[in-house]
């Protein structure tokens, strides 16, 4: 081998040879490690473990770290919120249902400030505020209308159903008579019966609305008729006044009597005691529903209105109607034969659009009654001061015994009472009173025990009205009863009763009932649900249940999966084939079927049964991964070496092969949690009935319940979906980060 020497090198070598220095090995060199024991030295660098190394790599992955911290916050919230938030999510608060989310106290144009724009709300023309519904409940209370009634933008709306509200406040419109699609017999719309005197002159005019009949062929064939109570010759009792036609216009008939008399079916009688006017609607044979719209009917007898007496209210009312809405309620006896509907169509009603503050409405004070037990509770809690010395306040009324006037005080002994009992045929107890037909209504009989002596005089204590409510300092802050409107206290002998009608402060009431955690107004940041529960707490309580389920299920699944996969992969052969087939069969059964089967078999479902279902098939993924790992490693040299040294199967499996897969196992455990949450939510969506947790609600159930209100109250599904998405995204990002950290070679690859 030839080495080309540079000039410099050559000179150095020459110099060395020139200087003639002789090397003395013992002098010039010494043994560095002479007599020292040589062995491996410790690394100067800090030792690192597999996990520390993975952590270092994980921290470098920024998105995963962010995901992990969001996840941490969410999990912490799931743990803390259900405990720290004292709002009750078990008791139903009917008043505070469906409050939208409220974050800001200032009016913000409807964004997260607890208000919303509503329109098409029926108004009560007398007050100018939204009207109560048919049951007298206010869906929109006047306290919630932002800006008062001046801010309500009113317009005319059309109502198509004869509800109480429409009948009260509406006007105009038409009465509609709709035949069913395919019925063939004739239908009638008939007025209240009245006396028809054929010798008099009747003028009838009616107006049918043509515009509402939609489409070709929808015009029904009708005829205006007089329905008599007498059998006509053809046996129907019907006198058609106008011929069957489809002519819609304002029609007047002036010679009603003459037309009836001219009818071939007319027999001798001159007066119909119970005659009615109305329409006959020809039965149809085609497949279209037909509706007759009647705007008004007017009947006049010699120029004066024809009347009847309302059987319920004893009022005298006119036959016929000029206003269909009013006519609908007074003309009570619309009736018809088979399969047809009488309704109200396009009644005009005032509707308003306004901004509604749901919180102001829910928290406004209202008039309400408190029962005796409520009052007792208030005394007990120290909200009210010492019981009233109520009997000293004064008698509200002094009643007298019939025939015997002793004003202002009356006093009767037991003997006298007995005598009166005998005289009037009464049976009075110690403190009872009774009115009979021979005693005038307002006169009430009192017995001795109802009479109290005040300042030497005997008073009949009937009802005491106590004016202001005496609240303690604590009561001022917390008592739901704020200002007494009336307090009544009755005392009859040993029997006492108290009742209180007062202005009730709702937010204090919510606190008193345990719905809310504080005695002041609360802003629900996720709003409230259909039962008035704080949805924020509902979501996180559900999340906690789901997380518990997820973590428990993934731990159990990992343990089973690892053991199963280890056995299957390590031993191979027939064991493997059988175990694989078993997995295939069990895994082939749809999860939802297994779930339903188990729920139906157990008869009910709870947390543990659901956990069992999740674990029944959930371990297969881990088993599969573990099996393939064992396939890869079981033939390696180190395993062979270990086996040669006499290691048992158990030792080989758990101490030599399994640790290789620790990263995979941790990652799959983390990724399994969102999978379980997802499965739980899916099942809750598909079979909400089959799955019900006692006590806590799962997140999936919360979501699927919120889904039901998506149209009217979308804020619930939005907030819970955002939490759900966050959880899923963060778990996935976190899991992927972990996977990359444990196995840097697969960085960025698909799962």
């Amino acid at each position, binding site marked *: 081998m030839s080495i080309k020497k540079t000039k410099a090198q050559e000179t150095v070598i020459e110099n060395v040879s020139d200087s003639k220095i002789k090397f003395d090995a013992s002098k010039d060199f010494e043994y560095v490690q002479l007599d020292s024991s040589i062995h491996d030295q410790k690394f100067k660098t800090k030792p690192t473990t597999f996990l520390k190394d993975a952590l270092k790599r994980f921290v470098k992955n920024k998105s995963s770290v962010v995901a992990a911290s969001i996840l941490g916050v969410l999990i912490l919230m799931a743990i803390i919120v259900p405990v720290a938030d004292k709002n009750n999510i078990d008791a139903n608060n009917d008043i505070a249902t469906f409050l939208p989310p409220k974050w800001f106290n200032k009016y913000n144009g409807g964004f997260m400030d607890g208000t919303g724009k509503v329109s098409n709300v029926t108004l009560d023309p007398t007050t100018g505020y939204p009207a109560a519904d048919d049951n007298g409940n206010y869906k929109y209370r006047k306290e919630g209308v932002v800006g008062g009634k001046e801010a309500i933008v009113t317009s005319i709306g059309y109502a198509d159903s004869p509800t109480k509200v429409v009948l009260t406040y509406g006007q105009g419109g038409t009465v509609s008579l709709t035949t069913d699609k395919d019925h063939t017999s004739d239908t009638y719309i008939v007025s209240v019966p009245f006396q028809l005197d054929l010798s008099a002159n009747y003028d009838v005019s009616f107006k049918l609305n043509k515009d509402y009949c939609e489409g070709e062929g929808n015009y029904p064939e009708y005829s205006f008729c007089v329905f008599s109570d007498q059998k006509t010759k053809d046996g129907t009792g019907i006198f058609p006044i106008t011929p069957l036609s489809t002519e819609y216009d304002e029609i007047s008939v002036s010679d009603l009597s003459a037309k009836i008399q001219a009818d071939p079916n007319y027999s001798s009688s001159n007066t119909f005691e119970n005659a009615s006017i109305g329409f006959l609607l020809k039965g149809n044979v085609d497949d279209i529903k037909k509706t007759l719209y009647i705007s008004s009917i007017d009947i006049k007898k010699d120029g004066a209105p024809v009347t009847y007496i309302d059987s319920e209210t004893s009022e005298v009312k006119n036959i016929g109607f000029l206003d269909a809405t009013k006519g609908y309620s007074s003309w009570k006896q619309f009736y018809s034969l088979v399969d047809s509907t009488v309704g109200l169509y396009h009644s005009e009603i005032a509707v308003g659009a306004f901004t509604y503050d749901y919180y102001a409405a829910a928290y406004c004070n209202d008039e309400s009654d408190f029962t005796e037990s409520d009052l007792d509770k208030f005394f007990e809690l120290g909200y009210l001061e010492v019981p009233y010395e109520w009997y000293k306040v004064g008698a509200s009324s002094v009643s007298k015994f019939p025939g015997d006037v002793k004003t202002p005080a009356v006093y009767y002994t037991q003997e006298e009472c007995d005598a009166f009992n005998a005289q009037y045929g009464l049976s009075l107890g110690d403190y009872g009173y009774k009115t009979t037909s021979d005693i005038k209504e307002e006169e009430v009989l009192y017995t001795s025990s109802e009479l109290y002596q005040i300042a030497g005089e005997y008073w009949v204590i009937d009802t005491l009205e106590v004016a202001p409510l005496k609240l303690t300092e604590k009561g001022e802050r917390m008592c739901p009863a704020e200002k007494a409107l009336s307090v009544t206290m009755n005392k009859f002998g040993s029997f006492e009763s108290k009742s209180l009608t007062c202005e009730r402060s709702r937010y204090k009431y919510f606190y008193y009932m345990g719905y809310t955690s504080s005695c002041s107004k609360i802003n629900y940041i996720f709003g409230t649900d259909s039962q008035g529960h704080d949805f924020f707490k509902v979501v996180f309580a559900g999340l906690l249940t789901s997380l518990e389920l997820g973590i428990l299920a993934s731990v159990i699944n990992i343990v089973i999966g690892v053991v199963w996969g280890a056995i299957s992969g390590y031993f191979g052969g027939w064991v493997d084939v059988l175990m694989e087939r078993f997995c295939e069969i069990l895994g082939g059964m749809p999860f939802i079927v297994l779930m*339903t089967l188990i729920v139906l078999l157990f008869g009910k479902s709870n947390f543990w049964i659901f956990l069992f279902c999740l674990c029944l098939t959930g371990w297969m993924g881990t088993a599969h991964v573990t099996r393939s790992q064992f396939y890869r490693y079981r033939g390696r040299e180190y395993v062979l070496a270990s086996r040669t040294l006499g290691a048992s199967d158990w030792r080989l499996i758990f101490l030599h092969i399994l640790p290789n897969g620790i990263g995979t196992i941790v990652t799959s455990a983390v990724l399994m949690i969102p999978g379980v949450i997802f499965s739980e939510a899916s099942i809750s969506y*598909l079979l909400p009935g089959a799955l019900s947790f006692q006590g806590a609600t799962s997140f999936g159930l919360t979501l699927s319940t919120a889904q039901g209100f998506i149209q009217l109250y979308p804020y619930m599904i939005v907030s819970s*979906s955002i939490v759900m998405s966050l959880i899923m995204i963060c778990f996935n990002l976190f899991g992927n980060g972990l996977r990359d950290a444990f196995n840097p070679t697969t960085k960025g690859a698909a799962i």
Partner: protein
Amino acid sequence: MWKYVLKRLGLLLITTFIILSLTYILLQCLPVEVPRGSKTAIVEFYQTQVALGYYQRIDESMDIYKSYITGNLTADYKFAPQTGSPVFYVSLPVMVRYFNWLKNIVTKWDWGTSTQISIGQSAISIIMRKLPVSMKLNIISMIISVPCGIGLGIWAALKKNKMTDHIISTLVMVFISVPSFVLISFLLIWLAYGTGFVNYQWPTIQQAQNWVVALKGYIIPVMALCFGSIAGFARYTRAELCEVMSSEFLLLARTKGLTRGQAVVKHALRNSMVPIVPMIIGEFVGILSGSMILEQLYGIPGIGSLFVTALTTKDYSVVMVDMAIYTLIGLLATLVVDLSYGIVDPRIRMGASK
């Protein structure tokens, strides 16, 4: 190769058979839901069950009749007509019912009749009526999502570690993680309730006569089905393509003078398609099963919502047919995926011993 395919097919049939048998036996252990209503409907139900061989009708001519009359044996249902003597209906043992069920399928291809959903109709005809809706929906979404997904994946891979890639990857991550029902909810709020652009329910037959309405009905379901699979395809394509792009043979292709575009199209793409094509095929078979939640939430009359309804109303015949379809599709999908690996990538040989 053919031997392997046949072997796999045989195994598939055996597995399907075992799964269905197990499910049938388990379902038969559950309480029977007799249709509510008139007596004739109940008697009709039992008559059908007798005809299918699941129940026994006991009348006077039988010896055992006396012990039912005296009450020594109890029957599931006693039908006492106004004239004549009562008739008893007794359920047969589970295994007898199972063999009768098998016999009906094998000899007559009779999978039983519906007892709740549409009483008296054969279960298979109900399924056949519902299957096309699910299939149509899923095929449409597949046609949209495959090119979109692969295209996005390629785009992201070519712009690796640039802004485009980051945006696509983030979106992919979001759409993979967000559950389908959340997606449907947001789509409903946005498109149906918010803008009122589409109907919030699958159009009814009358509504669907208007083709615009019918077409609009597809928007939400197709979007809901697409987003997930687009994200899946995009992620897979990006990962595969990135791996191939960093391999040595691509460097070779560039060094021999190919442009970047040529190298990507001719070498990288083809190789990265190896795991993606089976994925598409697998999904194509798998999509027939549809999405139960989507069908449930949007009121689509497909087999998914049918399955849930059948399960909740305990219409077991329909459940069984539906399950048979799901099981078969699931197993077929795995088989097709396994086989397609061998077709797409010649290096992989089917059934080769290790």
